[in-house]
């Protein structure tokens, strides 16, 4: 984890501050931010682990094409780069294809 978050603060006023739950930890977020931006800002690099080789992955394309940034958000598998956060969102690292415990 970096010592301070990776948000750029110069010249910008963000929306309402939220706090979301990432694997049990409280992580700061702002209204309108994508899940990917929130995770990257917090230094949370591993979004999921792959099904075959258990490799760490995060986002690659950043625009909804590669489907590598998948996470479990409130029980559903979503693309972190395309999904805005909501208040009290629960984000879980996706392990493989996801188990019944995480998925709705």
């Amino acid at each position, binding site marked *: 984890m970096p010592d301070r978050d990776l948000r750029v603060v*110069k010249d910008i006023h963000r929306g309402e501050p939220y706090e979301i739950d990432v694997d049990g930890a409280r992580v700061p977020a702002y209204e309108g931010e994508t899940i990917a931006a929130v995770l990257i800002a917090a230094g949370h690099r591993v979004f999921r682990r792959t099904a075959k080789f258990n490799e760490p992955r995060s986002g690659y394309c950043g625009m909804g094409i590669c489907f590598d940034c998948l996470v479990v958000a409130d029980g559903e598998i979503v693309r972190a780069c395309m999904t805005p956060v909501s208040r009290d969102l629960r984000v879980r690292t996706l392990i493989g294809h996801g188990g019944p415990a995480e998925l709705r």
Partner: protein
Amino acid sequence: MTRAELVIVGAGPAGMAAALEAAEAGIRPMVLDENLQPGGQIYRQLPPRFVVSDAQSQGKDALEGKALIRRFLEAPIEYRPGTLVWGVFGDKQLGIVDGKTVEYVQAECVIIAAGAYDRPMPIPGWTLPGVFSAGGAQLFIKSQRVLPGRRVLVAGTGPLLLVVATHFLAAGVESLTLCELSCMRRLWRYTGKVWGHWGLLWDGWRYLSRIRRAGVRLMTGHVVTQIFGQDQVEEAAIAPVDEEGRVRSDRKGLVAVDAVCLGYGLLPSTELTRLYGCRHNFSESQLAWVPACDSKMETSIPGVFVAGDCAGVAGVYTAREEGRIAALAAAQQLGRLSAAECQRRMDSIHARLRRLRRFCAALDDIYPPARRLVDLTTDETIICRCEEVRAQAIWSAIADGAGTPTEIKMWTGAGMGRCQGRMCGPHLGLMLARGTGLLEPAQGHLSVRPPLKPIELGTLAQRII
């Protein structure tokens, strides 16, 4: 079944320009866009509640984009954000999904303005967290104001790298290394092609001088050959490339980084035109399949038009002009414009397009996407990120006789995952060409089928045509 005279897929510069031109001709087009806000990638907006204190500081693209977006949102257009086109059926029937609602739209004319994405470049370590496409990294800074890393390597080829680097500098990074594949020699050869494009040249010059002033390590004629790290990027190897494009691995150097941004040019998004069955040609200068179209942007299927980067990557200004051309041609087909009036309005646009295309041809020459880069792919490199297929499996399929990308897909599973071959498909073509000597026109392109992006079965099942 919903009906629409004209459906435009994509609300980037080409889609928005097309919609405005169509509205001008008295059509109320339906614009479908997967993003939640208009703008596409180049004009991607900040979230609605974000406010910048100095609008001028956002740069020229952002200001030009804002002006276009404002006109787009005020015009009589049926704009549907957050809507994915996942299939085409019969004659111009589109399957669309908005969240969990599936709908079918019967269009009379369709303009596809699906844009482009960064060419994926599989090298060892490119699946590590902290490796981004150059365009993706730029989006995090531009539209979310988040830095993908503090010690950054930007590597690849093309003018986009300079733009990405300046975004990083403006946002504040600890260190930045810029690795450009092109040797950038003998640039005077292009004088004729770029003559007169003072605005674009001035943009390029400004980017370059900002980067030089900031003391960035700018290495031309270099590539990143390997990325190292445990659970995220820690280090990257850089090597020079000689005049023939051979990588000199013996002169490798290492940089300590926490983010790597790879940008080897852009690829047109052709999933929809391929699904339609439009004829495509392989462009050797862009190393990509592009839909064949006439001077009115109409594809081989009557009433289906293309505009912008999905019709061949040529940048934002070309995209806006092509969008207008496609809309005028559609308006004529829909009986809203006479042939003479349509031609009259197109003439001045065509003149501008010819000049823009000369400039783009020069850029393609200066920054050629190199076939040789396939040599950077080692046996262990993951080619298909979705199905986790390594190069080794693909080479052995080719050795066993797989002769088309679709055969490789059936034999190895590469291209069968969630991204539908958007990431690995073009590289399968390069590998096949390397292994068999047969270039892409002889191979054909990877097959696509609906849904173009994953949809839950429950969502799909709610509504049958």
